[in-house]
C-alpha cells in the first residue's frame, strides 16, 4: 500500500521524563513560621530527575557555573545512587553546595544553557545539588579535602561571606595558613545576616562553614579591618604574605526623599539583620523587630522579596505587605521563583509606582507613603525601559512600616585606611576580573566589593579565581 511505502511504522517513542517538581510547604502553613519553604527532593525524585540529564559531550552547564562544578559528573553519580560520591564530586570546586543549591539563580546559569532546555524544561541541577549536599550532611559523610603540606605562607582573608569562605577553602587545600577576619559575631556574611532562615537555614550555613575550621583556618571574629587593624598592619606587622578582601557591599542605599528618617522606616539590611543575625523572631532573643499592620517594601529584587516575606511572618496573617516598584513586572530583578513564592504568601505588588515622600504622625512615626504612578518610556543605559512619572497621579499608600530595599554599596573602612588601594567612584575596588589583583601588591579582592551587589555564586566564582592567583603569587614570592 502506498501509505506503507511512505512511512515506516512509528518508532517507539522513548517517554520523556518531565522535570520533577520539588515539594514545597503550602503558603498558609509556612507563613506562620521561619522553617524552610522548599522541602528538597526525595531519593526517588532525585533519581528520576537525574535520569533526565543527557550526559551530553558538550556539557555547556559547566561553563554556565561560575565555579565550574562537574555537573554531568555529579549527576551521573546520582543516577547510580551514589549520592555521597556526587556530593564529594561537587565539593571538588564548591565548598557550599547546600547553600548554592538553595540560593543560586540556576535559571540564568547552568540550567539556562542545559541542552535539554532546547526541547523541554532544563534538568533541575540546583535541586539535585541541594539534595546530594543535604544527603551527605545528614548521613554524616562530610569529608575534608586533601591538604597539601604546609607552604609556610600566611594569608589574611577579610570578610567571611561567600567569596572569603571560598578563598579560604582553596588556600587551605594548597597548604597555606589562613586567618579569617570577620567584623560580625558570626561567620557567613550575607548568608547569615541577609538571607532569611526560611530560604537558607542557618544551621546549614554553619555546617558547611565548619569544614573551613576543621581544615585549620584561624577565625577572628569582632575584627573590623580598617578600624581594629589596617591592611598595612596585617602585611607589615602581622606577617601576612597576601591579603584577600571580600568585604562585600554592606552600605544600604536610600531613596533620599522627604520623610525618610521617620520612625518605622528602615533599610532591608536593618530589618533582615534584626530578624536573621539577631534572631528577633525568636522569643528568647532580646533584639526587637517591629512590624505594623501595613508594610511597604520599596524595591523588587531578591532582598525586597526576602524582606516582604519576613515581614509577613513577623507581623502575622493580618499584616498586609506590599511591594512598591517603579518599573513593571517583567523588569523586577528578583528570581521568578522568589516572586512566585511571595505572591503565594499574599504579598501585594504595586508596580509602576514610585514613592515621592513619607508622611508621619505627631510622634514622627511613618503613616503614609505618597507615591506617583509611572509609565515606561525609552530604554535607559541598563537596557530596561525607563519609568517616567505620570503627572497628577500622586496617591497615598498607608504604611506604618517601610522597608527600603534598593541595593547596597561597599563601605569605605579599608579604602580610607589603605591609600594605595584604588577604588571607583562607587567605592568598589579596582581589581582584575580574572585574578582579583588590586592596585596594591599582594592584595586581592573579589565579590561585591569589586562588582557591586551581585549574587552568592558570582562572589564564590571570584573567590576561586582570586585563590588561584594568590597561589601563583605566593609561589613566586
Amino acid at each position, binding site marked *: 500500500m502506498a501509505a506503507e511505502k511512505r512511512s515506516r511504522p512509528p518508532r517507539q517513542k522513548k517517554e520523556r521524563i518531565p522535570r520533577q517538581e520539588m515539594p514545597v510547604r503550602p503558603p498558609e502553613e509556612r507563613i506562620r513560621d521561619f522553617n524552610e519553604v522548599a522541602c528538597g527532593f526525595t531519593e526517588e525524585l532525585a533519581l528520576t530527575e537525574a535520569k533526565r540529564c543527557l550526559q551530553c559531550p558538550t556539557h555547556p552547564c559547566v561553563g554556565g557555573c561560575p565555579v565550574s562544578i562537574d555537573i554531568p559528573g555529579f549527576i551521573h553519580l546520582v543516577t547510580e545512587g551514589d549520592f555521597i560520591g556526587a556530593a564529594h564530586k561537587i565539593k571538588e570546586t564548591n565548598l557550599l553546595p547546600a547553600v548554592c543549591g538553595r540560593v543560586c539563580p540556576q535559571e540564568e546559569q547552568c540550567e539556562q544553557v542545559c541542552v535539554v532546555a532546547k526541547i523541554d524544561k532544563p534538568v533541575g541541577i540546583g535541586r539535585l545539588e541541594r539534595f546530594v549536599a543535604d544527603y551527605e550532611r545528614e548521613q554524616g559523610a562530610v569529608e575534608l579535602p586533601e591538604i597539601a603540606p604546609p607552604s609556610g605562607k600566611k594569608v589574611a582573608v577579610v570578610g567571611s561571606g561567600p567569596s572569603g569562605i571560598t578563598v579560604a577553602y582553596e588556600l587551605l587545600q594548597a597548604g597555606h595558613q589562613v586567618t579569617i577576619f570577620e567584623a560580625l559575631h558570626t561567620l557567613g556574611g550575607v548568608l547569615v545576616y541577609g538571607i532569611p532562615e526560611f530560604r537558607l537555614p542557618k544551621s546549614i550555613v554553619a555546617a558547611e562553614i565548619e569544614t573551613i575550621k576543621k581544615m585549620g583556618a584561624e577565625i577572628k571574629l569582632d575584627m573590623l579591618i580598617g578600624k581594629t587593624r589596617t591592611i598595612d598592619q596585617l602585611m607589615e606587622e602581622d606577617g601576612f604574605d597576601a591579603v584577600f578582601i571580600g568585604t562585600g557591599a554592606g552600605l544600604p542605599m*536610600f531613596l533620599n526623599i522627604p520623610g525618610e528618617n521617620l520612625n518605622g522606616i528602615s533599610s532591608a539590611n536593618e530589618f533582615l539583620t534584626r530578624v536573621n543575625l539577631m534572631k528577633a523572631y525568636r522569643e*528568647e532573643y532580646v533584639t526587637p523587630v517591629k512590624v505594623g499592620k501595613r508594610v511597604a517594601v520599596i524595591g523588587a529584587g531578591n532582598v525586597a522579596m526576602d524582606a516582604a516575606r519576613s515581614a509577613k511572618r513577623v507581623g502575622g496573617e493580618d499584616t498586609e505587605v506590599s511591594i512598591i516598584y517603579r518599573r513593571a513586572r517583567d523588569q523586577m530583578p528578583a528570581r521568578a521563583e522568589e516572586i512566585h513564592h511571595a505572591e503565594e504568601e499574599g504579598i501585594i505588588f504595586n508596580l509602576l509606582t514610585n514613592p515621592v515622600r513619607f508622611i508621619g504622625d505627631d510622634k*514622627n512615626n511613618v503613616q503614609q507613603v505618597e507615591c506617583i504612578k509611572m509609565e515606561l518610556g525609552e530604554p535607559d543605559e541598563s537596557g530596561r525601559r525607563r519609568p517616567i512619572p505620570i503627572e497628577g497621579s500622586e496617591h497615598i499608600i498607608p504604611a506604618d512600616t517601610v522597608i527600603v530595599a534598593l541595593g547596597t554599596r561597599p563601605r569605605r573602612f579599608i579604602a580610607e585606611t589603605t591609600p594605595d588601594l584604588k577604588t571607583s567612584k562607587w567605592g568598589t575596588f579596582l581589581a582584575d576580573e580574572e585574578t582579583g589583583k588590586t592596585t596594591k601588591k599582594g592584595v586581592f579582592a573579589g565579590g561585591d566589593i569589586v562588582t557591586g551587589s551581585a549574587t552568592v555564586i558570582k562572589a564564590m566564582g571570584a573567590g576561586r579565581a582570586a585563590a588561584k592567583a594568590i597561589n601563583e603569587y605566593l609561589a613566586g614570592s
Partner: protein
Amino acid sequence: MYKIVKKKVLAPKITRFTVEAPEVARARKPGQFVVIRAEETGERVPLTIVDSDSEKGTIDVIVQEAGFSTHDICCFQEGDAFLDVLGPLGKPTHIENFGTVVCIGGGVGIAVLYPIAKGLKEAGNTVITINGARNKELVILEEELEKVSDELIITTDDGSYGIKGFGSTVLQGLIDEGRKIDFVVAIGPTIMMKVVAEVTRPYKIPTIASLNAIMIDGTGMCGVCRVTVGDEVKFACVDGPEFDAHLVNFDEQIAKHHYYDHEQACQMEKIIAAAEQERS
C-alpha cells in the same frame, strides 16, 4: 570572649567595666566606641570607650542601666566575660589646640566626655568642664575630670551638690561674663545637647555633639543610626558619633529614642516578673 577584669559601681545604675580587649585597646582614639554583645541572646549595644590601657590590653566602658540590655550587661561580674566586643568604631574626635574649650556633659554622657576632655587638655587647650547630674549621687568621674580640666564646674538639678540648675545655664553665664570660648563639646541626653546648641548658636561658637543613637552592627550596614545633619543624612556609627551640633536635627533623634519604648517596657516587665519569682 572578653574577660571583665574589674567592675565598679560608680553611682546607682551606673557601672564601670574594665574589659580585656587588646586589639581594641591598641587601636582606639578618644571619641570612639565599641559594640558589646554580652551573651548569645543579647542585643548589640554601642558603648563609648572611656579609657584604655594598651599595655594591659584593656578598655573601660561605663554603662547606665536604661533598659533591658544595659541592665543585663550590668549583671555581669568581675571574672565573667562578654561574648563579643567589636571596635574601635566611629570617627575619633578631631582634637587640636582651639584655645579655650568648654566640655559640657550630662548624666552618663560624662563617660563619653572624659576621654575627649583629656585629649583636648593634652593638645594644649584651656579646658573648662561642666559636669551636670540630676543629684549628688549621680555625679561621676569627678576626680578624673578634675585632673584634665583647668576649671571644673559641677551642677545638679536639685542643688544637692555644686551649682543648682542645668549646665547650659552655666555655659550661658560664662558667655555673658565675656569669657572667650573657642569651642564647645556637648555630650549627654539629646535634649541637653539641643539646648546647648541653642545657647552657642547666636555667638557662632563651634559646637559638637556626640549622639547616642540606637545601633545594631555599628559598622555602617543597617542605617538605624541615621541622623539628619543640615541637608544631609549621615550614619552616626561611621560618620559620627560626633556632629556639628548647630546642624543636627535633635528632634528627630529624640523621636527615634522613643520608637521601641513599648518593646523596652515589655522586656523590663519580664525582668521584674523574674526577680519577683526568685524572691517568692
